[in-house]
């Protein structure tokens, strides 16, 4: 089975600073990331701010120029696509953003917002589009009369449903969801998580889920990739990653998630230090200055993402639970 959406060695560099007499420096926001999203699969990208999650998503969508590597849709390199092929891809890959307040046009009624992608891609007649809007509203759990109202008349959770309906309108095969829950109240987050899971089982869509919320990712993802300073440090099936994390950073990230009902915290377990500036990333393994397992080699050579079990990869010289060869 070939992947729907795939990156090979995707690298994104930004020029920063620089002026008339000062050379610009370059920041590598995404470094050599190769990930493949299979049909019907949910692949999650986790990491803290500055890890490159959002830049990676933007590069896949063609919203940020790629410096090296490639993005392929249905096996076809987007760089060499013909115009019709590119249009087909734009229709098949849709996005849901974090902020349902900023991503919906406040001057359009909800029906027009949802029908817009259909119009852009010249799908159907105005009548069939109107029918499709009602069908989509029902699919995301909103009443048909919502189409005549405006975004400000809806709560945050309802707006995120509208954004999801709009993304679903052109019957995409992939939805890239960038922090779809983080602007919502806790009781609303579970409603949206359930909706995303239900849509997946009803229409067999693939999700690229970008999130810092490890519990939400655990709920929805089939596979998880952990990013640190632009590099994939671990990639594994969900249960393997949560139960047997091999990279010390993944382990620390999981240990940092506050647990309900485990009693008051015992200070002293937190990961030390801040995420380093991507302008001056540490040599070798980017994580070595904060890592309890680091040795001399970690400061010198960046470890490659290597298999440690079936489908489980880690970029670490001293992965947890793996005996040195």
């Amino acid at each position: 089975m070939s992947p729907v959406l795939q990156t090979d060695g995707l690298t994104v560099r930004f020029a920063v600073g620089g002026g008339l007499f000062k050379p610009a420096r370059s920041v590598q926001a995404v470094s050599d990331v190769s990930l493949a999203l299979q049909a019907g699969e949910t692949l999650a990208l986790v990491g803290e701010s500055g890890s490159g999650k959002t830049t990676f998503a933007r590069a896949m969508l063609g919203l940020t120029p790629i410096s090296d590597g490639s993005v392929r849709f249905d096996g076809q390199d987007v760089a060499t696509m013909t115009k019709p092929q590119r249009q087909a891809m734009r229709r098949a890959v849709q996005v849901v953003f974090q902020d349902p307040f900023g991503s919906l046009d406040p001057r359009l009624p909800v029906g027009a917002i949802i029908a817009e992608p259909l119009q852009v891609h010249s799908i159907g007649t105005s009548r069939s589009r109107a029918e499709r809007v009602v069908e989509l509203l029902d699919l995301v759990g909103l009443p048909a009369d919502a189409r005549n109202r405006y975004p400000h008349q809806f709560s945050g959770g309802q707006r995120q449903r509208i954004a999801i309906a709009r993304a679903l309108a052109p019957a995409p095969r992939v939805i890239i969801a960038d922090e779809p829950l983080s602007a919502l109240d806790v009781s609303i987050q579970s409603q949206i998580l359930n909706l995303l899971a239900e849509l997946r089982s009803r229409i067999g869509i693939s999700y690229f889920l970008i999130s810092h919320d490890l519990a939400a990712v655990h709920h929805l993802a089939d596979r998880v990739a952990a990013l640190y300073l632009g590099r994939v440090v671990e990639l594994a099936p969900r249960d393997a990653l949560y139960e047997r994390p091999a990279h010390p950073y993944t382990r620390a990230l999981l240990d940092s998630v506050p647990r309900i009902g485990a009693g008051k915290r015992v200070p002293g377990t937190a990961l030390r230090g801040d995420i380093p500036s991507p302008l001056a990333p540490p040599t070798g393994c980017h994580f070595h200055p904060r890592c309890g397992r680091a040795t001399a080699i970690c400061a010198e050579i960046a470890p490659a993402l290597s298999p440690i079990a079936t489908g489980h990869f880690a970029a670490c010289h001293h992965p947890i639970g793996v005996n040195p060869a």
Partner: protein
Amino acid sequence: MTSALLVADRLTVSLGQSDPVRILDGISFQLERGKTLGVVGESGCGKSMTALALMGLVPEPQRTGGSLMLDGAELLGLPEERRRMLRGKRLAMIFQEPMTALNPVMSVGAQIAEMLEVHEHASPSAARKRAVELLDQVGIAAAAERAHAFPHQLSGGMRQRVMIAMAIACRPEILIADEPTTALDVSVQAQILDLLLELQRDTGMAMLFISHNLGVISEMSDEIMVMYAGRVAEHGPAADVLAHPTHPYTRGLIETIPDIAHRQATLPVIEGNVPNLRQRGPGCAFAPRCKLVIDACRSAVPPLTGGRHQAACIRAAVPA
């Protein structure tokens, strides 16, 4: 209970002049030395207003009712200048976004020093020296150099450490932390939570810790107060509230959060949204979203009942 440092009794806050909205509707709780009261609830439930009422920072036009006693002395109705003397000195507060709370054009060391000069009448040089000590105490490496840094030169976690240094500068008896880690990454959040617990252990300060994140509340609190639409829904010892929640809202909050240890195909949900405070009916504010609702719930606001573990629900004894 003799050890209570601060006692809030049926605290109410109404905002607005012509058509006031009751933001807090009869909140009662106590803060004890060395202990943390965790306040949890969703947006609009009154968490932050509780903090502002304690600090005496409720925005005008407002009306505050009930009682707020610090060490046996009433705070409500105190003239503003007396209230201001307490702020920073006996009660201090840290916020979610330190960038907006810090002065962007003043070095962080100078900001802390200024505070010591005002409240403790320290000499400029002594204040400067103490500012560096405080930065060191909150875990900022190379504190003497970092004291010269401006807020924008520091990371989010560092800025929150600076805020905490400023808050503890005058050794307050009560620290109010309003979503102090919400803007931070999880690994940095863990560091800040550790720091607050260590400071509490060393100074014996009482904490009012506000968060929408039940995991964070669980890890920080001795007691938990669950708020809903400006009222207390449930209140009790932390372990008890989390293991045996009795209010349907608390139960719902705990169940709806995905749990890494117990994955469920479909998450339980609380239907509907947090109500607009103007549209709270005569009964329980949670009634429209409650699965256990009966007619009596809609006719009168249920009182808090129970011993150390209380809930404001006439259906609290009914199994979900």
